[in-house]
């Protein structure tokens, strides 16, 4: 029998793959074989570790040494020095950005230290394509436990007591929803997992599906038992090919060893899971639209009630939950609702996975207990703002959410406190913005998104978002009028009150919240025709200062010949010709061109 003395984990999540982890894997394989180490060192391709910024990531066990930004060229060093001679390759270790100290061990890195990885516990540590690895870490124990020891009602009671709330955005109590579906009349019921993850800037569901697919399937099976369903669907966006592949493998493996299928573990409970690929429509994340899409129709929302719990897929009672919601379920069963309910705040229990993106040092996924402050997430886990820039705001909850300014950074993050300040948890996407982001442009960006994703069924959303977008566009182009702000506010209130589904009802939120905290930026655009962040191209003016050495690089680069001047003397920009593309600014070697 072969004796494995070392495991080398290579992240093969989407982030690391695009930074080149496949090549690193191939190179490692080749090098190990060459050195004759391939029998004692096992390579494992894992899911996402969440620290995408530093990818490709390679971890060597048993030492737990964490190598970052590993490239093909580095493989020789890792194999010859670390795996062969037992010497750590210092230059590939993670460096603490402030003290510049090297941190060899995974758990000591600040990015991970503050986290509480429960849903993501296995992500990056197991091979997601091997069911044995999930089982070895207590996987499918919850399913075994409910089937052998618990009545369906008891399962629902346990989830209720744990205080689990939906992670898909709304935060509806999960146990309550399960209870509704269980008590709805009918003998055919469905479980649906919402893996549409449409919120741009969120990728936690993707990482869970790619890194630990069995956890989600187990959660669905427990739900199926609790509500009395024998069939489940996972609706995954087509943009996630790797997640789809891993789910297919996981379902097949679970069927083969009888953890899905007929008469699971001899209990008489049947449950099978199917995958439905989305076809590219944000609104299909809304539950009634999602069901219509599974049925093969246009994914348009319909008024509720009836709620899917009563009349869902093909008119049958259907329980829909988000990926992360299902992924929380197994541990609630195995560790108990009391343990779970002790984590988090009064109204929001457990952990939440946040996707840290934008102008932040450590982009990636961070799982933290509910109630932690935004400051801790952004500065201690996220490592603050890069390039010495100043924090301006963080957008939470995607196109339906809102932004939080500096003065709200100490707010504990949970469902209810976010609603109070005009934002929402949403999917947990956190997009950090610095002083170079224009808040009016950001609001315009979100409305462009919701407007193009509006399904067109109801008038307030179809027409209203379009009109609001027109107003925002003219403001950012220097054509804003007095009264535009008030008009935006009125329209926002009307759309919120009258739109058919969550898409329209929340579409004005980014406008309202930027108006609430950054009204002065709107005013500067409208009254002074200025963009304080210097982001709105039509409002930016470029000027050449006396730092100019007359090298004429800008003149050559200007696409519209707006720059004049002779060599070795100060050049000038003709403002009537300038199209404000900013090319000259990037080309100037003397920082002589200023924007403003």
């Amino acid at each position, binding site marked *: 029998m072969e004796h494995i003395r070392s495991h080398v984990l290579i992240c093969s999540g989407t*982030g690391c793959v695009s*930074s080149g982890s496949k090549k690193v894997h191939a190179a490692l394989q080749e090098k190990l074989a060459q050195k004759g180490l391939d029998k004692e060192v096992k390579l494992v391709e894992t899911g996402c570790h969440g620290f995408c910024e530093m990818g490709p990531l390679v971890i060597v066990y048993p030492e737990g040494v964490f190598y970052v930004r590993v490239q093909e060229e580095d493989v020789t060093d890792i194999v010859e020095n670390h795996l062969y001679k037992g010497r750590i390759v210092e230059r590939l270790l993670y460096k603490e950005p402030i003290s510049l100290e090297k941190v060899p061990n995974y758990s000591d890195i600040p990015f991970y230290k503050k986290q509480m990885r429960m849903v993501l516990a296995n992500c990056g540590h197991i091979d997601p394509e091997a069911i044995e690895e999930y089982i070895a870490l207590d996987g499918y124990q919850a399913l075994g436990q409910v089937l052998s020891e618990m009545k369906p009602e008891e399962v629902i009671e346990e989830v209720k007591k744990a205080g689990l709330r939906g992670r898909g955005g709304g935060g509806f109590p999960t146990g309550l929803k399960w209870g509704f579906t269980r008590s709805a009349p009918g003998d055919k019921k469905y479980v649906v997992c919402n893996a549409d993850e449409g919120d741009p800037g969120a990728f936690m569901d993707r990482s869970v599906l790619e890194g630990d697919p069995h956890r989600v399937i187990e959660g669905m099976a427990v739900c199926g038992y609790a509500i009395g369903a024998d069939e489940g669907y996972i609706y995954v966006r087509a943009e996630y090919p790797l997640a789809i592949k891993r789910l297919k493998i996981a379902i097949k493996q679970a069927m083969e060893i009888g953890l899905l299928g007929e008469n699971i573990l001899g209990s008489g409970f049947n449950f099978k899971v199917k995958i439905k690929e989305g076809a*590219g429509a944000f609104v299909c994340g809304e539950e009634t639209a999602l069901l219509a899409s599974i049925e093969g129709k246009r994914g348009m929302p319909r008024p509720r009630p009836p709620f899917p719990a009563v009349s869902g897929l093909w008119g049958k009672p259907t329980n829909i939950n988000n990926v992360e919601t299902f992924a929380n379920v197994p541990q609630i069963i195995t560790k108990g609702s009391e343990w779970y309910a002790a984590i988090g705040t009064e109204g929001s229990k457990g952990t939440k996975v946040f996707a840290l993106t*934008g*102008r932040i040092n450590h982009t990636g996924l961070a799982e933290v207990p509910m109630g932690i402050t935004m400051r801790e997430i952004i500065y201690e886990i996220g490592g603050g703002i890069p390039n010495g820039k100043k924090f301006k705001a963080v957008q939470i909850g995607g196109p339906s959410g809102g932004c939080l300014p500096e003065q709200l950074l100490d707010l504990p993050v949970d469902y209810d406190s976010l609603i109070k300040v005009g934002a929402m948890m949403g999917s947990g996407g956190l997009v950090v913005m610095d002083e170079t982001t224009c808040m009016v442009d950001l609001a315009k960006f979100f409305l462009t998104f919701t407007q193009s994703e509006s399904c067109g069924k109801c008038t307030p959303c179809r027409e209203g978002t379009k009109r609001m977008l027109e107003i925002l566009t003219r403001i950012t182009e220097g054509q804003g009028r007095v009264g535009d702000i008030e008009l935006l506010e009125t329209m926002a209130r009307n759309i919120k009150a009258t739109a058919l589904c969550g898409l329209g009802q929340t579409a004005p939120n980014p406008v309202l919240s930027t108006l609430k905290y950054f009204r002065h930026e709107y005013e500067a655009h409208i009254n002074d025709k200025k963009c304080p962040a210097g982001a709105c191209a039509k409002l930016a003016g470029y000027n050449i200062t006396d730092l100019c050495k007359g090298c004429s690089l800008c003149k050559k680069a200007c696409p519209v010949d707006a720059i004049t001047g002779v060599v070795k003397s100060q050049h000038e920009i003709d403002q009537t010709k300038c199209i404000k593309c900013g090319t000259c600014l990037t080309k100037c070697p003397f920082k002589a061109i200023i924007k403003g």
Partner: protein
Amino acid sequence: MSNQCKCNCGGKSNAFTQLDEILSKYQNTKGALIPVLQEAQSAYGYLAREVVDYIAEKMNIPVSQIYGVVTFYSQFHLNPRGKNIIRVCQGTACHVRGAKAILKAVEDNLKIAAGETTSDLNFTLETVACLGACGLAPVMMVNDDTHGRLTPEGITEILDKYR
């Protein structure tokens, strides 16, 4: 309706054999229209009028209804597409890290606008709202490869790999 194919196979393949296979696979599946369209599109590259008509006939669904579905979802295409599909992310995370400049660089390189296909049918350029690789923003996908941490200057090098 004639089953004569109008694609560039030169009449070698007997009309819709592949489509027939797809249709028979989903014969008894509920809600099969979208998966059938997805597979038909991946077999033929896009959903030609003849393909849609044929699916309508075989599945007994009005053509108008199929068009309703096809035009609703951004994934479906009624016109031929390039050999390489470029999808430049314009999602939030990419937006704040300069996705607009990336799109412009790609447009300038290919000399087409988003939504268009190059005349040699080598590239189709599209925008998407988030590819789920936000940690590496700005991001684009060429076919199934994700390219992250893009800069406008680096675009040519990436695109040249697909030429």
